């Protein structure tokens, strides 16, 4: 039983691949694992955003290819969260353009709907729905957004709960789980929507050290499936292992981006150097 959206996406993926083979698009992004495709799924051009008078994002340009894993780091307040929240329009940008899955983000609600269906997001504070069980948290989207029958949605949810290794918690409420378990449920909840892009905003920052690993492992497994991922994190081990590109942001700008090895071993800008020395220094 494959939900219709999934089969559609597979079709689109294959189409993209053949398109790439024909050399329609030039590959420009650095890639390491060879898993990243050549179709651009996110394209941000000259994007600017303000909070009132505060210029929070300045001339952001970024292109993300299908299957790419991008780690975004930078000092607190540099606009990392704002940037990825603009990608699924939890925040509205004011200048420039953001194109996700070939759809430009505008105030058009139809576009917004399609984009939110295909872009999953995981938050620092999990944001599970406390009045619903773990299973209900996961089936809510499929049932109401994809109009999936309940039984099918539950089967799908169990599949993803198994993938994040907590099927036995399905009947519990989020308040009864540990932080690490809650974050894995949050990942499963997003995956149940069958997105092709996943955004993570400091997914491990609210966790105790022993739980960080279980969440990172889940994310590594997800990366291995070829999911396009944008991850805001300071877990440099994760960046090193998984990322195709590391982006460094400071004061609302992308200051540096490179493959992880080059980024960590040979940072170019002074701000990157001082940031890296701060987080790796101890």
């Amino acid at each position, binding site marked *: 039983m494959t939900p219709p959206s999934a089969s559609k996406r597979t079709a689109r993926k294959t189409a993209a691949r053949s398109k790439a083979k024909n050399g329609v698009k030039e590959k420009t992004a650095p890639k390491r694992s060879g898993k990243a495709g050549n179709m651009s799924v996110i394209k941000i051009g000259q994007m600017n955003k303000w909070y009132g008078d505060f210029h929070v994002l300045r001339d952001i340009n970024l292109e993300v290819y299908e299957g790419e894993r991008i780690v975004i780091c930078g000092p607190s307040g540099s606009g990392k969260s704002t940037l990825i929240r603009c990608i*699924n329009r*939890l925040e509205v940008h004011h200048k420039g353009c953001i194109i996700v899955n070939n759809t430009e983000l505008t105030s058009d*609600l139809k576009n917004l*709907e399609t984009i*939110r*269906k295909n*872009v*999953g*997001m995981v*938050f620092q*504070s999990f*944001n*599970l*729905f*406390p*009045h619903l069980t773990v299973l209900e948290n996961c089936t*809510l*989207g499929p049932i*109401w*957004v994809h109009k999936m029958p309940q039984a099918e949605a539950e089967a799908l949810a169990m599949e993803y709960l198994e993938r994040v290794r907590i099927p036995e918690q399905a009947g519990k*409420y989020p*308040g*009864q789980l540990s932080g690490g378990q809650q974050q894995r449920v*949050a990942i499963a*909840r*997003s995956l149940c*929507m069958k997105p092709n892009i996943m955004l993570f905003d400091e997914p491990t920052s609210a966790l105790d050290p022993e739980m960080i690993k279980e969440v990172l492992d889940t994310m590594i497994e997800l990366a291995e499936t070829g999911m396009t991922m944008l991850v805001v994190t300071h877990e440099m081990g994760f960046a090193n292992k998984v990322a195709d590109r590391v982006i460094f942001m400071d004061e609302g700008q992308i200051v540096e981006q490179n493959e992880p090895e080059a980024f960590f071993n040979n940072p170019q800008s002074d701000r990157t150097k001082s940031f890296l020395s701060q987080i790796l220094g101890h």
Partner: protein
Amino acid sequence: MAPQRSQSARGYVAKVSLPALPPPIGTSGLIGWLRQNLFYNLTNSLMTIFTVVLLWLLVSSASGWFVIDAVMQAGSKQECLKIDSGACWAVIGKRIEQFMFGFYPEAERWRPLVCFLLLFVAIGPLLLPSFPARRQMLWFSAIYPVLTGVLLLGGAFGLPPVKTALFGGFMLTLIVGVTGIAASLPLGILLALGRQSKLLAVRTLSVMFIEFMRGVPLITLLFVASTMLNYFLPPGTHFDLLLRVLIMVTFFSAAYIAEVIRGGLQAIPAGQYEAAQSIGLNYWQTTRLVTLPQALKISIPGIVNTFIGLYKDTTLVIVIGLLDPLGIGRAALADANWNGLSNEIYLFVALFFFVSCFAMSRYSLWLEKRLATEHR
């Protein structure tokens, strides 16, 4: 100087794995409960004894007038006094039908009675998730208001019509109270959402409505309903007084409910809205499935508080000439036979209100417990 014990506790490690033992005697079970709750320490014990003595004094002194010396059957106050010195409950017995139905025609009183019994069938599935065949029964809940309207008013299906001016007593209290409660909750929710809306026009209208309704005493609104509304309506239109009262009471209570629910909505973290949006839910889905259920849950005490207030405020309809239980009581007091029995009559009316309100209060506590999912 450090005591000897701390010397040996230093560097202590468990050498064997210890089995779990039962708790010491007196910390669990009945004795444990008594100790924990009634005789925890000297102050607690004194308070317990004081309370017991107070309760005993109260019960022993009141039981004489209320029960032991009370008269259940008599033809007038004079007869009561001849029989015994306590309460003259006979007046209630004589007037009970009026207390229940007001001046509803005697031959038709089965109609409100049927409505009353069906009320439980209608609210049962709404209030209790374990109600048998709940889904089907909810359909009955949905048609119940229409059914009641037809039954009470008549004029259809061969039922003789009955004027609302004849409605009275507890029946009137229930009609105004239950309608007000049932209608003000959805209206209050819409107003609360409206007040938080991004659309300026919706927000302004909601705020104006809420502030106006809250800023005016209910009595004033009832007067407006009974007299002033005529000036605004085209001449010759008939607009039933009871219906006007129902609308005013609903609006008044909806304004309070809206504010209670707004408080609940504001307690929902922004992350809940964001998470709901990020999985693609639209505004109404987010509200209905994610934020409103949580907001309502937090608001239960405030909502029930408002409902209890509304229910008791239904007695205010007396000022525009409707015969609520207090009005019936007054009529009974005006009867030469029962002159001067205000204690009995007002206590009886008080008991009716207390039972209803206490039931609401208990239900809300039960609901809060059932909905508690935070086990931190």
